[in-house]
C-alpha cells in the first residue's frame, strides 16, 4: 500500500518535471532569445575590410557582467558566418579586446567609447541615445530591437535592409 502512494507521487513529480521541461523548450528564456539575436545580427552586418579581414573569426564580446550564462556559448559553438568562425569573448571593457560585436549589458555607457568597425548592442532605448547601434527592447514580453542607423554609419558598419525590416523602430 505504501509503495503505491510513493509511486503515485513520483509519477506526478515526473510529469510536472516533463511539463516544465517542455515549457522551457517551447518558450526559451529572454537571454536565450537575445543570444540567438546577437548571433543573427552578425549575419546581417558587413564590416569594413580593416575591421574584419577574410577568414578572421568574428568575435562576439560580452562586456562586463555576462547575463547569458552558457546559452551563448552553446549557441555559437561551431557556428560560422560565411568563412568567419564565431567566437565568444568575455571582456571587462570593449577596448580590452578586438570585437566585431560588442554586447553591453549593464555597462551601456561604455558604448560611446567603442572604436570604428564594432557593432554595439545594448539594452533599452537609452542605449541608443548614448551612441549604441542596436538596442533590445521588450514588447508584449517579446524580445525586439531598435536600430540607430547614424551610429552605424559613423562606425562604418553596414547593415542589411532585411534587418531594418524586422526592427521595431529604426532611427534614421
Amino acid at each position, binding site marked *: 500500500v505504501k509503495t503505491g502512494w510513493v509511486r503515485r507521487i513520483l509519477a506526478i513529480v515526473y510529469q510536472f518535471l516533463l511539463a516544465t521541461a517542455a515549457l522551457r523548450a517551447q518558450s526559451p528564456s529572454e537571454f536565450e532569445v537575445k543570444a540567438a539575436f546577437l548571433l543573427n545580427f552578425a*549575419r546581417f552586418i558587413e564590416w569594413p575590410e580593416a575591421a574584419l579581414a577574410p577568414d578572421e573569426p568574428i568575435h562576439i564580446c560580452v562586456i562586463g557582467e555576462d547575463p547569458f550564462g552558457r546559452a551563448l556559448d552553446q549557441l555559437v559553438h561551431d557556428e560560422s*558566418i560565411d568563412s568567419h568562425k564565431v567566437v565568444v569573448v568575455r571582456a571587462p571593457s570593449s577596448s580590452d579586446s578586438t570585437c566585431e560585436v560588442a554586447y553591453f549589458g549593464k555597462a551601456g555607457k561604455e558604448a560611446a567609447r567603442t572604436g570604428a568597425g564594432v557593432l554595439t548592442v545594448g539594452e533599452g532605448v537609452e542605449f541608443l541615445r548614448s551612441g549604441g547601434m542596436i538596442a533590445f527592447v521588450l514588447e508584449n514580453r517579446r524580445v*525586439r530591437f531598435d536600430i540607430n542607423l547614424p551610429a552605424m554609419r559613423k562606425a562604418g558598419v553596414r547593415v542589411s535592409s532585411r534587418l531594418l525590416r524586422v526592427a521595431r523602430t529604426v532611427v534614421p
Partner: protein
Amino acid sequence: MTRFWTPFRDWPIRRKVLGVIIASTGLALLLAAAGILIVDSVLFRYSLERDLSALSQIIADNSTGALAFDDSKAAAETLGALRARPHLIAACIYRRDSTVLARYFRDGADKTCPERRDKLWTGYVGTSMSLSRPVSLKGANIGTLAILYDLSELNSRAFVFGAVLLPILLVACALGAVLSARLRERVSVPVIRLADTALAVSGTRDYSLRASKMTGDETGVLVDAFNDMLGRIQSRDEELRHMLHDREEANRELMRLNEDLERFAFVASHDLREPLRMITVYTQLLQRRILSDAGPEAKELAGNIITGARRMRELIDDLRAYAELGAPAELSSSVDLNVVAQKAVSNLALSIQTSGAAVTWDALPSISGYEGHLVPLFQNLIGNALKYRRAEAPRIHIGYSAGEQLQFSVTDNGMGIAPQFHETIFVAFRRLHGTEIPGSGLGLAICKRVVERYGGTIWVESRPGEGSTFRFTLPATLLAMRPAERATLT
C-alpha cells in the same frame, strides 16, 4: 488490315482521292498540333519551374530577417506579396525546427502547408507543383520555404490551344479539299472517262468507240491499251460478222437447193409412176394378145420393155424414198426392228427365193423411229447382199449388240468391195457396176441418209472376194423401253 479497307474498296476514285488528301492533311496537321502542344507544355512547365524557383529564391531571401529574428508578422508580410500570383495556392515558412513561422493561403485553398524537405526539391502533387527551398543566411540554414503552385493553368492552356487549333485544323482540311479539287480532277477524270467509255462499250456493243487520252501516265497507258484492244475487237467482230453472214447465205442457198431437189424428186417420182404403169400394162397386153402368135424374137423384145419399165419403177421408188427421207416425219413411235427385218425380207422374197439365200438375224431391239425409214434401210442392205453375190447361195446375217451406242451389222458372203470404194459407195448415183447388175445407185445413199438422220454413222468393212460387213450405229437414246424394263427403272 484488309478488313479495315473493305468499306472503302467500292468507293469511286474521286472520293478515294479526296479521302487520301483529307486523311493525309488531317493527320499531318494533327501530328503538328500534337507536337506543338507537347513542346509548348514542356517549355511552359520548364519556364514555370524556373520562374517558381526564382520567385521562391526571392521570397526566401526576403524572409531571412524574419526567420532570423522569429518575426512571424514580417514573414507573413513577405508571403503576402504572393497574392499577385493567382496560381500560387499556398506558401509556408518553416523554422529550423520544422514549426511554421508564417503561412499564406490563396482564398478558398485547403489550409495545409505544403511539404517541406531538407534540400531544394520540386515535385508534382496531383495537378499542382510543390517546391521546398531551404532558407540560408550567410551559409547557415535558418529555415525552409515551401510553395504549392497550381498547374491547372497548364491544362487550361492546352484547352485554349486545342480550342484554337481544332478549328484551324478543320478549316485547313476543308481548304485543302477545296484547293485540291482541280488536282483531284486531274487524277480522277481520265480514269472516270475511261470507265465511262468501257461502260458505254459493254452497254451498246459499239466497238468503234474510243477512250480519249488525257495524260501520259499509267492512266494514259491504260487508255492506249484499251483503245488498241477495242480496235482489235472491232476488226475481229467485223470479220466474224462477215463470216456469219456469208455462212448464213450459203446455208440458205443450200437449203433452197435441197428443197428444190427433193420437191423435184418427189413430183417426178409420183408423176412418172402412172405412165410407167401404162407402159407395163399395155406391153403385157400386147404380149398376151397380139404377140402370142409371133415369133420368139418379138416376145423377147416385149419382155425387155417390161423389164426396163420395172427397173425404172424401182428407180422411181428409190428416188421417192430418198426424197421422203428429207421430209418431216413422226419419229417417236416405237418400232420393233424384228418386224422391220421381217418386212424387208418379205419385200425381197422373190430374190431370196431365186438365189436360194438364207437371211438370219439376232434378237433386235425396238427403237423409237418411223417404219417408213427403217424398212428401206434394212431392205437395201439385204438387197445389196443378194445382188452382189458370188456363185454360191448368199448367207446374210443381221447382228446386234448394245453398248454406248446400238451397233448393227449386216454380214454377207458376197463378192466384197475394194477398199478404195468404201467411201464412194454411199454417194448417190455412184455405181461400181454397169448394167450387168441392175440398181438405181441410190440404195446405200438412202441407208446413209436414214442412219445420219437418226444421229448414227454407217460404214463398210470388206475385201474383194471375202464378203462384206456393213455396220451402222444408232444412239442408245432411241432404245424404246419395254414395259417391264420401265417398271424396274421407276
